[in-house]
């Protein structure tokens, strides 16, 4: 573990920006909220934030990206496209790092999705331990409040200094520059970081009343409880907000957009959401999840069960984005999961 | 020489909104000579009743797509007047930029797409895209520049989003303003090209004159568009609060629209009126261009309105550059994202006047204590011009009635187009009447 003074970290970030080798993005404030965005200077960086509106997945799987370019003047010509911008991403909280680990598995699964993987590979992830905890977050319960790996560098705020944990050689290389003033951490500082991490565990207002390991069977057991799902989904707008803001959601739609000549264009993918009404609709109008409640249930099933069966992870990292941004306030996983848990005893 | 003339122009083309021209003559005697407005009524002054003060500008912007920035600003000024809401100097400058953008956009559209075809003996701009590609592209470039300006300042080219009571929901960045300034500075070649093109066509502009009263805003410090008093070329200055003394709406039996009059039977508003009243305050290059056309106020040829628009476009470009420079020199004061000024609604009446491309525009609202609108009145420039169009026609027809019917029709159409009427926004049209 290394230690760096706050002002030196600022200089370091400014240098990275000036260096221009990779785009430097970090957490910035937007109105009363926070977003990951391109940094113009280190001063804009807000490492003391609660949660960002969108997770950093947008850098590996952009809201909209071109997969294929085509041209149809004579016959067809198609070319795969991957617009990769190498980036240094500063200020990722542990739950988002965990989510990125999960996404890595999804896109590395055969057949590999290079549009994601290459962007991911060309990025450097600098994590930061939480100082503020979102009132909606329950990362403590999901085991994602702190993290052992998945970052290239990990920062912890020690007042006037940051402790820097080096996670990978990519991270180490980034630090290898002469101008950077950094020293090895004292044993007390290592202990301080441990204490801080321990304290974070206790800072959550929202909690799951049980271990998330129970989710797969709990959800399976309640799959058929239609009344329950209907009751809870009654106010759902089918607006997909809970999908879009989620760091572990990755469903997408693909559409073609021709330019005005009609002879060339792009095939693009855009984030989609299983809560949207047409998500499972096929030609002829048959919709395999026509009811709000079916779609609502599907999201929870996917978070707590299906993706676990497929990739071995509970696909909710407890960031609380879905619940904090759902306008009718019905998307809180702890609320639903806890209700199921307490009902099971009845 | 035609003794009998029957002209029925149903839905005059290349104007905004629906209007008809009807002229009948028997044995050389004029029996009927009318400019009729047949736009379906849209009842704006009722639509806003009971609505919240935060929504009025959104609703009244829809009076007219082309002057939507102007309507929004007149609306905001009326609301701000009613509730004593302050607007910062910076926001006022930005609003002036917005108005310039709209002025340029609308004038370029009118001159380039609607009026030029007449002067070039073409039925529309479409054939010109092939015969005069360069000229058309010049016009398009200027039009796009004007739209980019509206985009940068107000968020959109039509029906602005950022203009809200008390200021702006979002303001442009300094970089965006800088870029805009560079583009404006880069447009002088195109402006000169358009001016020269019209100069070459000057002989095609009919030499028609009729003594007319011209009404516009006027202001000591600047060529008035956003602020000022009402000014008549006949009767001098009147404060905006007394606008009803000026507009005097009345109905006439042979017409479908309400007319307005002040000192004479009718008056004219618009670019020509502004130039006539405020000529001395034009920017330097605008003045140069006006001189090329021997512009010497008072100019009483309504066809010169098109030329006045060209002059105003140049003025708007120059004045915008000046405004942006001022803003950048002072440094933009940052404001919150999703800005929404802290305003307590209150009861009262407010009047807002701005110069929009087609002339002076008034919005007049009364609010109750919760900020619900109880009464509204909007007097639109085109309405103010209808009477003048009619009187111009009456003077012109006897002079030209001996020409071939087609020629008469073309001249009359050109006359109406010169006013650049914006009929769809005429909120006070009466008695729809169709030609059988």
């Amino acid at each position, binding site marked *: 573990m290394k230690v760096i003074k706050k002002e030196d970290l600022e200089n370091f970030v400014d240098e990275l920006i000036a260096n221009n080798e990779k785009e430097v993005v970090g957490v910035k404030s937007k109105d009363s909220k926070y977003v990951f965005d391109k940094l113009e200077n280190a001063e804009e960086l807000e490492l003391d934030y609660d949660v960002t509106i969108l997770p950093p997945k947008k850098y590996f799987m952009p809201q909209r990206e071109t997969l294929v370019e085509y041209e*149809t003047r004579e016959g067809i010509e198609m070319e795969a496209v991957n617009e990769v911008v190498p980036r240094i991403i500063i200020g990722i909280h542990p739950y988002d790092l965990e989510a990125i680990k999960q996404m890595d598995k999804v896109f590395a699964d055969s*057949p590999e999705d290079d549009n994601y993987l290459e962007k991911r590979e060309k990025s450097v992830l600098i994590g930061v331990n939480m100082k503020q905890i979102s009132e909606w977050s329950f990362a403590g319960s999901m085991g994602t409040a702190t993290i052992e790996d998945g970052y290239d560098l990990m920062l912890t705020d020690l007042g006037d200094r940051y402790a820097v944990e080096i996670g990978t050689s990519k991270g180490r290389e980034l630090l290898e520059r002469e101008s950077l003033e950094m020293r090895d951490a004292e044993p007390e500082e290592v202990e301080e970081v441990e204490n801080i991490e321990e304290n974070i565990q206790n800072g959550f207002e929202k909690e799951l009343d049980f271990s998330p390991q129970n989710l797969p069977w709990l959800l399976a057991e309640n799959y058929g409880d239609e009344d329950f799902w209907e009751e809870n989904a009654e106010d759902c707008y089918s607006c997909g907000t809970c999908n879009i803001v989620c760091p572990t959601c990755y469903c997408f739609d693909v559409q073609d957009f021709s330019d005005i000549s009609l002879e060339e264009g792009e095939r693009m993918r855009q984030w989609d959401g299983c809560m949207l009404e047409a998500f499972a609709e096929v030609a002829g109008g048959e919709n395999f999840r026509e009811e709000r409640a079916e779609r609502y249930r599907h999201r929870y099933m*996917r978070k707590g069960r299906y993706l676990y069966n497929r990739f071995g992870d509970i696909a909710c990292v407890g960031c609380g984005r879905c619940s904090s941004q759902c306008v009718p306030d019905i998307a809180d996983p702890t609320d639903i999961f806890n209700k199921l848990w307490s009902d099971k005893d009845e | 020489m035609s003794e009998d003339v029957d002209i029925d122009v149903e839905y005059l083309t290349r104007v905004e909104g629906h209007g008809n021209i009807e002229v009948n003559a028997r044995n050389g005697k004029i029996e009927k000579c009318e400019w009729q407005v047949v736009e379906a009524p849209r009842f704006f002054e009722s639509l806003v009743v009971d609505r919240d003060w935060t929504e009025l500008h959104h609703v009244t912007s829809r009076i007219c797509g082309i002057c939507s920035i102007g309507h929004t600003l007149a609306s905001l000024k009326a609301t701000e007047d009613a509730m004593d809401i302050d607007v910062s100097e910076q926001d006022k400058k930005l609003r002036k930029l917005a108005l310039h953008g709209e002025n340029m956009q609308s004038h370029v559209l009118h001159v380039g797409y609607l009026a030029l075809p007449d002067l070039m003996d073409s039925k529309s701009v479409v054939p010109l895209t092939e015969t005069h590609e360069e000229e058309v592209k010049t016009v398009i470039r200027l039009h796009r520049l004007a739209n980019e300006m509206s985009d940068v300042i107000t968020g959109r080219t039509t029906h602005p989003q950022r203009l809200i009571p008390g200021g702006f929901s979002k303001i442009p960045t300094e970089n965006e303003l800088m870029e805009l300034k560079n583009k404006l500075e880069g447009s002088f070649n195109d402006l000169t090209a358009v001016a020269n093109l019209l100069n070459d066509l000057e002989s095609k502009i009919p030499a028609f004159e009729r003594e007319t009263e011209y009404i516009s805003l006027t202001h000591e410090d600047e060529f008035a568009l956003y602020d000022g008093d009402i000014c008549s070329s006949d009767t001098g200055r009147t404060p905006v609060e007394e606008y009803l003394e000026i507009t005097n709406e009345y109905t006439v039996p042979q017409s479908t629209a309400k007319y307005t009059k002040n000192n004479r039977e009718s008056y004219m508003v618009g670019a020509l009126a502004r130039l006539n009243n405020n000529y001395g305050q034009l920017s330097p290059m605008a003045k140069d261009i006006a001189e090329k056309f021997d512009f010497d106020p008072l100019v009483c040829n309504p066809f010169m309105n098109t030329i006045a628009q060209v002059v105003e476009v140049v003025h708007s470009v120059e004045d915008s550059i000046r405004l942006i420079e001022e803003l950048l020199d002072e440094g933009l004061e940052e404001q919150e994202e999703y800005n929404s000024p802290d305003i307590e609604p209150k009861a009262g009446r407010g009047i807002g006047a701005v110069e929009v491309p087609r002339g002076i525009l008034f919005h007049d609202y009364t609010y109750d204590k919760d900020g619900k609108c109880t009464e509204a009145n909007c007097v639109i420039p085109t309405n103010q011009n209808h009477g003048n169009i009619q009187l111009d026609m009456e003077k012109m027809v006897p002079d030209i009635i001996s020409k071939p019917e087609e020629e008469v029709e073309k001249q009359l159409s050109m006359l109406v187009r010169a006013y650049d009427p914006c009929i769809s926004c005429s909120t006070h049209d009466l008695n729809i009447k169709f030609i059988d």
Partner: protein
Amino acid sequence: MNKKDSPYLPENATILSVEKMAEREKLFEIELDSGEQLGHDPGQFVEVSVPGVGEAPISISSSPTKEGNSFELCIRKVGNVTNVIHNLKEGDKIGIRGPYGEGFPVEELRGHDVIFIAGGLGIAPLRSLINYSLDNREEFEDIKILYGCRKPCELLYEDEVEEWRDMNNIDYRETVDECPDDVCWEGNVGVITTLIPGIDIDLDNSYTVVCGPPIMYRFVLQELKEKKVPDERIYLSLERRMKCGVGKCGHCQINGEKEELYVCQDGPVFNYDNIKDFEEAL
């Protein structure tokens, strides 16, 4: 980036011929421009691309045993991509990705009786396996084909059906839901389930393979149950919305009590026993 790197990049292919089969269905014979064989198993599908319009998953309707390098797709005109495909002619270019998915378990079926039950367009994927088994007739025991559609004019693959009717080493039966008075039809009239009671099923030695619209599954499965056909001896092919075909886009996932399935990767062919508890499957 070359093709291998992007699972989303189609290969160029040429339409060799187009045959109108019924009012809404056409049969397209297609060859990859690379000259290579598609290399599919019966029951697999491809993503067909029309640049500017999009992609649609379509089952491969020809058998891998078909001569030459081309393959066949039977496409019903129902929406965006399929409408535009219907306007294409011989020589036109399209894009192909695939083959994708799990096809029919040919190894498992080999040496057994096979009963094919096809409703409407369901014959398209089944034909791939039917022709495969007819081309390797000696490897299979009894073959029965039950084929039903709404009206005689909707019957697909007329020439081949004509041959099936005459073949004496298979048992071919057909039905239409209704037959207009002015049409000559010698087959059965009634829904496809009416054919099932009349056939003998050797429960220990036969497999049933079903493909058709969702509503047909419900009734056919009911009928097979009455015949005591074990669930694990039934295979069926499902259709879902798909955007990628490779297990990423999430659209084709179906939910059940026990687990989840991706139609594009785990299917489209499923063993009935594995999906019968899936509320969303049928």
